[in-house]
């Protein structure tokens, strides 16, 4: 069952539901009135800077913390009265938390033993789980004899072998080499899809979130700022926080006013006209225009193609697959224009005059 199919499912297919949950530490509200629903089999990422409340939310779901108010439902049943050991949730920890005094097989079998599963059955399921994570020979080893990536997979096997209703992953890749990380991400995603288990993934790494998730909940200051699919999140950020947090973006100051069914944006000599539907809110006054570097293109100055502004190249930043031109616009804006390849290095040297073309369909105003 693919995630896309699941998405078509009815309300009854909600696996995890967080309903108006609040948790404070002292005066600080770590989780502030958060609600979200996760469908069965869905891979949802909690993304945000450190201190945004994502880990607290994860701990609330796992039962390591108790909410002050609100309720959490799994498969429709409230669980806040249950201790962690009474819930049926698999957790993969940032440092894996493998029991150092047990073998790999004992680690993986621990949850089954707690469930009083028979010895033969434990053995069979442990072996099955080890095969699933492609480490069938490692049962007799101790955790410290394994590499980081292997420990990671054992932790995953240990969490999945109990056939939980939900699996929680707390920054599982942060302790792994960058090279291995991409490989592990693909593998995790494959296993998750195979098993079809509902997954909550916590990370502060946006590229990880964008590449793995069915949906992403961007969190800040204890609140979910936006919960949507990765493409939507990137192209249509719901507010200025999401816009600035995800990917690189140009923030251009301007004043706005309503003009018939359009909104007029002005800064210095620059005037832009956007359909009102693209601009949330009614107000007039100071605004920010958000536009990604790849939605901008360098063109000859003064031409109609240069629909955003004219300016001068201030610096070139070569990035391998592309060149970023730092442009000082005549009206004072400082922009980053992304040109694919490396031709731009020669064509737009530092000090050259240029015009900037913007794909305004990709721009947002807040």
């Amino acid at each position, binding site marked *: 069952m693919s995630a896309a199919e699941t998405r078509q499912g009815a309300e009854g297919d909600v696996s995890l539901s967080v309903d108006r949950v609040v948790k404070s530490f002292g005066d600080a509200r770590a989780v502030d009135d958060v609600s979200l629903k996760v469908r069965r089999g869905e891979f949802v990422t909690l993304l945000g800077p450190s201190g945004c409340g994502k880990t607290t939310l994860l701990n609330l779901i796992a*039962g*390591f*913390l108790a909410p002050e108010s609100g309720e959490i439902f799994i498969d429709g049943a409230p669980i806040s009265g249950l201790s962690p050991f009474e819930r049926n949730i698999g957790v993969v920890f940032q440092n894996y938390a493998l029991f150092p005094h047990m073998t790999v097989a004992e680690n993986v079998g621990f949850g089954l033993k707690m469930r009083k599963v028979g010895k033969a059955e434990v053995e069979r399921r442990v072996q099955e789980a080890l095969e699933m994570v492609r480490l069938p020979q490692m049962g007799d080893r101790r955790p410290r004899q394994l590499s980081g990536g292997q420990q990671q997979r054992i932790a995953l096997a240990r969490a999945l072998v109990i056939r939980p209703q939900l699996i929680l992953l707390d920054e599982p890749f942060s302790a792994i080499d960058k090279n291995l990380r991409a490989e592990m991400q693909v593998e995790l995603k494959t296993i998750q899809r195979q098993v079809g288990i509902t997954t909550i993934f916590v990370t502060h790494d946006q590229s990880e979130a964008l590449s793995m998730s069915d949906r992403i909940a961007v969190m800040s200051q204890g609140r979910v700022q936006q919960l949507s699919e990765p493409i939507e999140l990137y192209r249509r950020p719901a507010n200025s926080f999401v816009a600035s947090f995800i990917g690189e973006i140009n923030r251009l100051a301007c004043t706005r006013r309503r003009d018939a069914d359009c909104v007029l944006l002005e800064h210095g000599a620059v005037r832009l006209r956007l359909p009102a539907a693209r601009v949330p809110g009614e107000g007039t006054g100071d605004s920010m225009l958000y536009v990604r570097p790849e939605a901008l293109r360098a063109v000859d100055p003064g031409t109609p193609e240069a629909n955003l502004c004219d300016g001068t190249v201030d610096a070139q930043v070569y990035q391998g697959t592309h060149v970023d031109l730092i442009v000082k616009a005549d009206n004072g804006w400082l922009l980053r224009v992304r040109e694919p390849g490396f031709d731009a290095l020669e064509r737009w040297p530092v000090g050259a005059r240029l015009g900037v073309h913007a794909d305004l369909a990709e721009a947002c105003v807040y």
Partner: protein
Amino acid sequence: MAIDGRRPTLLPWFIAPAALVAMLLVASLAMLFQYSFRAHLPGTLDVGGFTLDNFQDLGKWLYLRVFIDSLVISAWTAGLSLLLGYPLALALVRCRSPWLKAAILIAVIIPMFTGDIVRTYSWLIVLGTRGFINGSLLGLGVIDAPIPLLFTTTAVVVALVQYSLPVIVVILSAAISHIDSDYEKAAASLGAGPLSVLWNVTLPLSMPGILSGTVTIFAWTMSAFATPQLVGGGKVNMVSNMVYHLGFASFNFPFAAVLSMVSLLLIMMVLALLGLWLRRLERRGFAG
């Protein structure tokens, strides 16, 4: 880190035995407190009714003298232990060969594990009239007749310093090993020689350890018994010796209780002062 909110139902069973031990301790201190207000009936083990006389006796020169002697001996012991212990602790931390390090460590802490009596007895042999020092000096012809070394305050302090060294070395080396060696490297790169680094960087940064080590030894020495009892031989008396004498020679347990209480209070006060001092150091940026 425990898990939020829920307490295991078995928790009381974990606490109960510890609470019983704590209660036993409280009960014996309470008895001490109670006895200090009871009249001494000479010649018996029984005690009389409520009285404050025991506390008046505290002001007598004989007892005041014992307290003053104890404080002086403790101060000397603490100071000398620091002076001798610091180089040893520094050597222990800086020593690169693990073999040598272990050897130094074991040599230093053997006295800690052999107990009061063996340690103190050793000093009787070292300082006795036919002991190591007199024997060696006589053998070398430096002196003609043995010089009296035992039963002096100096002898007691010397023995107490040896007794305290393991403890202060352990405390000091813990403090020194917590100093980030980058500070020392930074000072050296700025032109400070080894002595200057020691004086300007290492010593000030180990201040919390120096303070708590010295005060710990001071408080500990205040309660020393075996060393002044044997090495002092009745000529040098600390509070503990007086308490023992009062208890087992005069059976004056009420007054022994008073002295015990007062020395406990003194030690508590010293340690409380240390706590305040350490907190002030910490506020000034020294690692705790």
